[in-house]
């Protein structure tokens, strides 16, 4: 139905702004849970959340084809051109980045481990130079060995945003590139050693403008998956991505489907994190979302690639039926659904008025609006979700005993800001997102209790950031005080989650994801975090950032996203990798 197609169309949006993580892998031969025997283990008993924190139905049995389906589609299967979390999870089956995340259940999954490289990066020159040594014997699907030059080329081509607009821009922003370099296509002869050096075929060295301790997270980006220059056809490369992983593309038709088969030139000896159990993968794109759920339940499809959880209809079916519920998991994504409280708009320039909103909001209603505890998520009390390393639990604005909002406190706050009878503002949301619509209506109801009159304004998701809520001038003109927003981590640390959405220095004319947080103190903390080498200390700083943002009350957190996903029939080694909040596609097998 069209509404569904709207959802689909914007789901992509959701992912663009929401989920996003990196490649993964691990040095351990068998993903956790000692129960893994050589003999195919008997199918484990179904149980709710059996795939979370532990491996469900572990097995080493090879063979079979895993059927994926997705109601939308990849933005692109070209490693240089994708920003979808599920894509970053999936493309590890055909591409190998320098390092990646450990295919293990629970927190362990956030651990960066070497993949194409022999070990994690060697930092020098106070984190400005990073060196990686490639494993020997790794080959492309056509048998040619992988050289460091191929990695360098891959990273450089990914910088060409004219050709690959979808991918992240970390390398663009951090690499120390020569001024005259435009792109590998336009200026192929420009020397780029100032950014990346390849002293020999196995060594690659990155030079950054300024030091960054967490560079391994960059090295884990799909951008470092090697691409043979000879085979690069720019935009059209996605029609046949040259594989380094255990699987290669048999067919890749955007908008229709993809099928992958074993890559004869992949050698288990060079790879300690992949077990490559199935003989291949079939992916059906643009499936009917409700139909997809039903097929997932019936067993006709085994994995919902997007992993964003079942549609409401199926949700009630799954939760209503114990047998079905036992087949489902409820993973937490590193994503927060929240509402920006925009200080540029009067009277929200006043802290107390902003606080009033925090207190008046009905957290339970919000949670329900975002589809409840299972499909929506846990009630959020701060911006940074729990799955982010260094997350600290705190609640500056307790919403009353039953979490339906603290009207009394809200009234106080209003009086404090000189608007005892409340005020009127507009709230922006993405018109084609039922959840945000519902959330807006929930807020409308809740704030009305203290006299804050909310007028809802739906805007097309496609232009939401470009033309509407993402455009400060627009918000001022249209008195938009609240704007629905959502954000997911690129990887699970403070930088990966917060850097894009609380740094006031990133705010520009239009296309902002940070719509409200403007606090020099926050900016200062961010800089501090960047340069803190020690991980724990660094995470502590990010926690401070989170706290500060909440103190400023620039953000009304709604839920820390969760999804209700159904484990496909006959799958083995099923577990959720925290790095993505999705099933780890690398480990999956079939009986």
């Amino acid at each position, binding site marked *: 139905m069209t509404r569904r197609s709207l959802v689909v169309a914007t789901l992509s949006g959701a992912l663009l702004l929401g989920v996003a993580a990196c490649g993964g892998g691990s040095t351990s031969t068998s993903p956790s849970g000692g129960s893994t025997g050589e003999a195919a283990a008997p199918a484990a008993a179904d149980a709710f959340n059996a795939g979370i924190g532990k491996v469900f139905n572990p097995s080493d049995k090879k063979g079979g084809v895993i059927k994926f389906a997705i109601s939308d589609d990849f933005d692109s299967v070209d490693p240089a051109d994708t920003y979808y979390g599920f894509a970053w999870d999936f493309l590890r089956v055909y591409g190998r980045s320098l390092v990646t995340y450990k295919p293990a259940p629970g927190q362990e999954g956030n651990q960066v481990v070497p993949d194409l490289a022999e070990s994690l990066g060697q930092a020098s020159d106070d984190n400005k130079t990073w060196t990686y040594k490639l494993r020997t014997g790794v080959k492309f699907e056509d048998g040619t060995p992988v050289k460091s030059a191929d990695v360098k080329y891959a990273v450089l081509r990914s910088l060409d945003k004219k050709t690959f607009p979808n991918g992240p821009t970390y390398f663009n922003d951090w690499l120390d590139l020569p001024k005259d370099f435009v792109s590998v296509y336009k200026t192929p002869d420009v020397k780029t050693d100032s950014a990346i050096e390849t002293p020999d075929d196995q060594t690659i060295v990155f030079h950054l403008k300024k030091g960054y301790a967490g560079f391994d997270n960059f090295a884990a980006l799909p951008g470092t998956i090697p691409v043979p220059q000879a085979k690069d056809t720019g935009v059209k490369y996605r029609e046949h991505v040259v594989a380094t992983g255990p699987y290669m593309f048999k067919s890749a038709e955007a908008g229709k489907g993809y099928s992958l088969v074993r890559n004869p030139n992949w050698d288990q000896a060079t790879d300690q994190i992949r077990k490559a159990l199935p003989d291949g993968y079939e992916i059906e794109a643009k499936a009917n979302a409700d139909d997809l759920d039903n097929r997932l339940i019936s067993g006709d499809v085994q994995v919902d690639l997007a992993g964003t959880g079942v549609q*409401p209809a199926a*949700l*009630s079916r799954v*939760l209503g039926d114990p047998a079905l519920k036992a087949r489902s998991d409820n993973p937490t994504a590193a994503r927060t659904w929240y509402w920006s409280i925009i200080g540029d708009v009067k009277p929200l320039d006043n802290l107390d008025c902003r606080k009033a909103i925090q207190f008046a909001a009905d957290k339970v209603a919000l949670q*329900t609006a975002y589809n*409840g505890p299972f499909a929506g998520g846990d009630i959020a009390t701060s911006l940074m979700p729990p799955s982010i390393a260094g997350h600290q639990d705190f609640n500056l604005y307790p919403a009353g005993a039953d979490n339906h909002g603290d009207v009394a406190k809200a009234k106080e706050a209003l009086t404090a800001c000189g608007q005892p009878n409340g005020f009127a503002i507009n709230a922006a949301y993405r018109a*084609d997102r039922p959840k945000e*619509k519902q959330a807006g209506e929930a807020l409308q109801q809740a704030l009305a209790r203290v006299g804050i009159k909310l007028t809802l304004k*739906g805007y097309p998701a496609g232009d939401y950031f470009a033309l509407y809520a993402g455009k400060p001038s627009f918000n001022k003109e249209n008195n938009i005080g609240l704007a629905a927003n959502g954000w997911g981590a690129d990887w699970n640390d403070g930088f990966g989650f917060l850097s894009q959405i609380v740094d006031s220095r990133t705010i520009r004319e239009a296309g902002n994801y940070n719509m409200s947080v403007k606090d020099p103190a926050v900016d200062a903390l961010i800089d501090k975090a960047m340069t803190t080498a020690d991980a724990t200390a660094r995470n502590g700083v990010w926690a401070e950032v989170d706290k500060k943002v909440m103190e400023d009350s620039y953000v009304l957190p709604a839920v820390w996203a969760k999804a209700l996903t159904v484990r496909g029939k006959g799958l083995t080694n099923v577990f959720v990798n925290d790095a993505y909040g999705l099933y780890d596609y690398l480990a999956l097998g079939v009986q």
Partner: protein
Amino acid sequence: MTAPLDVSGTELQAAPEAVVEGAGGAKAIQGRSLGQIAWMRLKRDKVAMAGAIFVIFLILVAIFAPVITGLLGHPPNEFHQDMINPETMGPKASWGGINKDFLFGVEPVNGRDLFSRVVYGARISLLIAFFATMLSVVIGTVLGVVAGYFGGWTDMIISRAMDVFLAFPLLVFAIALAGVIPDKAFGLEGDTLRIVLLVFIIGFFSWPYIGRIIRGQTLSLREREFVDAARSLGARGPYILFREILPNLVAPILIYSTLLIPTNVLFEAALSFLGVGIRPPTATWGGMLSDAVHFYTVPHFMFFPGMAIFLTVLAFNLFGDGLRDALDPRSSR
């Protein structure tokens, strides 16, 4: 009903006229206008009358929506999350939570009173349908008459214009238009803007249909004796147009307006269904249906708005058909 056309032969087709005269007796003949004759026939058409009555009922419902919901329901946008199962977001109670103070049950997620929302939906639906129809009838009639009456180049241009309109992939185009118009335009905003916008879009795209008919009618009327007569008596253009032609267009205009309204009701519903209609939280039938898509496990959610659309359109169609049969017996439907 008309003469028993099953038997051919001039007499028989002439019968109804003869009948009417006879029925009234020679005296009454002068006194009875076409309108009265039509009304007589209409009154005899039970189905059409049923349709008419339902239409009137709908209009009353739309007008007194606040009163009705005040008595029998809750404000259309009021949440009742106590009625909702927080996990599945569906209604707690079975049968979609239908009970004495939620006559149609509640919406999933927010537990709004479905009854009130359906009632308020009638407002939007009828409002837009009526005004859109008016718009298209006005445009259609004016251009149709002009084209038919003056003929020549004027006719050429207008007819071509109609063709162009008919060539547009209507729905796609309407959606596109409704999609790109900013939230604030022409000094309007919010529902008002959306309503005006939809009225404009719908009305503007359906005028060629009525335009063609009117043009045809005018063409044939222009050649009729009584017009020649008037002309020979020295009547000038405007007089003929307003005194001789327009009055004779009343019947077709009436018929096609009544038949256009239901089409427009469907059109509005479609646009709302596709998400380019009136913006939430304002209740529209089409909008409710599109929300219901994701909650097909609670069928009442799609049932009531769906039936509302169906019955409304049906009623208008029944009435329209009756009206046509009454106003022009030859259209032997």
